[in-house]
């Protein structure tokens, strides 16, 4: 399990339920590495502000993380973490490697308007 304060998704079933039950979802799939940790930190920081978005992480090496690793939107990704944004269960955006606060905010504001 990742050592973050985010909700952890631990199986493909849990992933399916989470994206189906919540309208706006951001999931960061990574390891405890230098490119991933800053993204978890940003998500923890934004959780209180973006109450209409549900934030979670998923361990990249969890076999069930294939739901993210093999998503067509992540084809060509070669840098951790894979960060995926879902609206009503469908992927609306995916990014590879470290992202800044501004980059994450821009995506949340564009795709998850209140």
């Amino acid at each position: 399990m990742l050592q973050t304060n985010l909700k952890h998704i631990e199986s493909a079933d849990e992933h399916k339920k989470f994206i189906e039950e919540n309208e706006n979802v951001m999931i960061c799939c990574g390891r405890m590495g230098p490119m991933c940790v800053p993204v978890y930190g940003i998500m923890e920081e934004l959780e209180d502000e973006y109450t209409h978005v549900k934030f979670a992480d998923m361990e990249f090496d969890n076999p069930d993380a294939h739901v993210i690793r093999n998503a067509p939107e992540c084809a060509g990704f070669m840098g951790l973490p894979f960060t995926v944004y879902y609206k009503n269960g469908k992927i609306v955006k995916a990014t590879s490697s470290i992202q800044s606060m501004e980059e994450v905010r821009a995506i949340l504001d564009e795709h998850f308007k209140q």
Partner: protein
Amino acid sequence: MEEIFDTIILGGGPAGLSAGIYASRGRMSTLILNEGTVGGQMVLTHEIANYPGVEAINGFALANIMKKQARTFGCTIKGNLRITGYDLQGDVKTIEVNGKDIYKGRSVILAPGGTPRTLDIPGEDKFKGRGISYCATCDGDFFTDKKVIVVGGGNSALEEAVSLTKYASEVTIVHQFDHFQAFEHAVNEAKANPKIRFIMESELREFSGDEKLRAVKIEYLPTGEITEMEVDGVFIFVGYKPNTEPLKDHIALNEWGEIVVDPQMRTNVEGVYAAGDCVVKRYRQVTIAVADGTIAALSAMEYVNSTKQLEQEAGQV
């Protein structure tokens, strides 16, 4: 009444967190404002094995311990924000955050650390995470049996190049000079590795590809000749720069943008101190940042206590 902190610390890496621990434990009202993830470069470190008293530990875990320690003593920590304004002159210093919130402090400790340099050439943003990486330990396994380039000539570049040979079929080190800055043992290890080859006196000029990185343009500096090389990945390790650009009009920096301090960590502005990787120094390590932060906090404490005393004597408070 508007709150005036005894000290505001800019930066929440090991220097800032240590300053926070000492200042708040010394009963100073203390605020840490951090632009990125609290922990600074420590959170970029898989394993810190040379911090005395702690056996090998993940950098994120060490940062969390320091953060908790500072909070226990009453230090307020705010992370992932943007510092948009500085007024460091006068008895009360003002820091503007996110273009709207104003924080005031009797003293300021600058601990903004450093950031990895990027190449700033066409295609770098586009292919970040699609072939361009800044961390071999994180992304090395995506390049199994592939051809990669490592850019740089310091210890990180050479050590990461060697570690990438566990995955990649071929590793080419591209370096701008005809010699390396890395320690001799790191150079020797790279030279002895049959999977590593070297392109010296050369710089990358452009990244190209489709949905993935496919090729780079390389300039041979002595002649200016440009060649194209097909490649699957590029790992960039071209050093760090101090995060002092926004401070250049407020305090004295040297020609490399490092903050000039005296042995008490005082800058040229009264009541303003600096600590960690951002100050002039030869070595940059967690232990050194922690020591700097300690000195800066103790100096700030002495300054704040003496100004408070003077104010009291003058009957101002």
